[in-house]
């Protein structure tokens, strides 16, 4: 049996003035590359927040790698790569130091980085091909490189699950392609990659699974089976003209 990386059962999140998720259930298996799609405000970010433990659902259960969220946080199972506009790129911090932040959960608040932490950071930087840039201030990097730094932080954290929020926004096609290759590599090395994206065109070639969100999980499963005209139109209220389904 395939093990489950993330399991949401009957999860409801009510922000008081609006219900963001209603009875959402989804099981995301290990070693999968899942694309999460849905309109703006459909609950994609809320789902991410629930998985990260930033939002507590009113009802339902969430398990991450068979642990409750708070335990999963302690283990550092989940890493989040935020949208680029959420980062202050002028912040006086080097690539190396950002990646070292990934080690903070393991170190505790008082300890300084030890040899093992440094090894983790350098290995993570090498994995995303950013070792040569480790001393650069983060704002000096290109869009694709910036993403790689935060992916490296997730790797240094030792996370099994990577949540990527719109990583391709604002990137040129070449950077997007090489990032996709990196994500696929990570998946093949055993990571579970979950990607919120608006890029429906490249999704069938990229993700082996897809989850469609409209205030709940409309559909979830292997891309070949689920990424159909009917379901996509249902998710986006039929407002799609530019996508061809074979």
């Amino acid at each position, binding site marked *: 049996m395939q093990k489950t990386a993330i399991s949401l059962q009957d999860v409801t999140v009510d922000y008081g003035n609006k219900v963001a998720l209603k009875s959402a259930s989804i099981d995301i298996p290990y070693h999968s590359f899942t694309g999460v799609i849905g309109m703006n405000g459909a609950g994609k970010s809320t789902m991410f927040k629930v998985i990260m433990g930033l939002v507590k659902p009113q009802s339902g259960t969430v398990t991450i790698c068979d642990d409750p969220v708070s335990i999963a946080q302690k283990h550092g199972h989940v890493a989040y790569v935020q949208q680029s506009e959420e980062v202050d790129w002028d912040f006086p911090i080097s690539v190396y130091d950002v990646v070292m932040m990934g080690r903070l*959960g393991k170190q505790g608040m008082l300890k300084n980085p030890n040899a093992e932490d440094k090894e983790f950071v350098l290995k993570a930087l090498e994995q995303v091909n950013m070792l040569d840039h480790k001393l650069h201030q983060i704002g000096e990097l290109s869009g694709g490189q910036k993403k790689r730094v935060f992916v490296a932080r997730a790797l240094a954290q030792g996370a099994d699950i990577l949540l990527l929020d719109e990583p391709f926004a604002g990137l040129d096609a070449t950077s997007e392609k090489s990032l996709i290759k990196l994500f696929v590599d990570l998946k093949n090395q055993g990571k579970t990659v979950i990607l919120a994206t608006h890029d429906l065109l490249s999704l069938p070639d990229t993700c082996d699974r897809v989850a469609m969100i409209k205030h709940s999980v409309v559909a979830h499963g292997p891309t070949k089976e689920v990424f159909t005209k009917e379901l996509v139109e249902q998710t986006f209220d039929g407002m799609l003209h530019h996508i061809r389904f074979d």
Partner: protein
Amino acid sequence: MPLVEFILEPLQYEFMVKAVVVSVVVGITLAILSCFLILKSWALLGDAISHAVLPGVVLAYLLGIPFGIGAFVAAMLAVVLIGYVKNNTKIKEDAVMGIVFTTFFALGLIMISKVISSTDLTHVLFGEVLGISDSEAWYTVATLSLVSLAVLTFRRVFMVFCFDPIHGKVVGLPMGIVHYVFLMLLAIAITGSIQTVGIILVIAMLITPGSTAFLLTKKFSTMLWIAVIVSVFASLVGAYASYYFDAATGGTIVFVQGLIFMLVMLYTKLLPETYR
């Protein structure tokens, strides 16, 4: 008068030694905090807190408890109230802060006018480092050194707090507690600095050194050093100006800091980074 004599002559007086030591400690602590404050975009919140501590300080004075406790309680009340009003009305946060901290400050003024003389009031508002008493000097040096030590010890955690608190939460760090600890350290530092620079201008020392340093470097450790050096220099100028010209200490410190900021800004504008 030769420079050495100019510097050493006032130091034969104990009150001047105290003033110099206190000013330097204040300068160091506020400079360190300022680096975090401006990166967190909390300049306005710092301003709000510095004004809001006043009623707490007066109350502490009346009850005979340490000023820091009163200041902290008042600061927390103000922060909670700002959050409450923001979440329950359509008023935007900057206006809410403006309303809350001026109301606190006004209450402090009323209380203070009933309790202490107008000379002392001037000192609370604008600072008077030459007149600092032994116990006040010790209190300031002790509390501010502790604040500096705490901030530097937990520097990496505060960095995450400023740069990416969501990541902090995701890896299980208690970011909510860090938030309040930072506010508390801020409140304590502000209270400790009142005697030197006064309540009205303390915010400048919490914004300007960090901003000046931020213009000059892309490395946080360098930023800390530049901010501290600029701030200590300005503090010393302030203390000596008070001695020689009877100039307002706080006013001089803040003016010198502002001047340095302007010069640095011109320097960075006129000389692009590649040529430095």
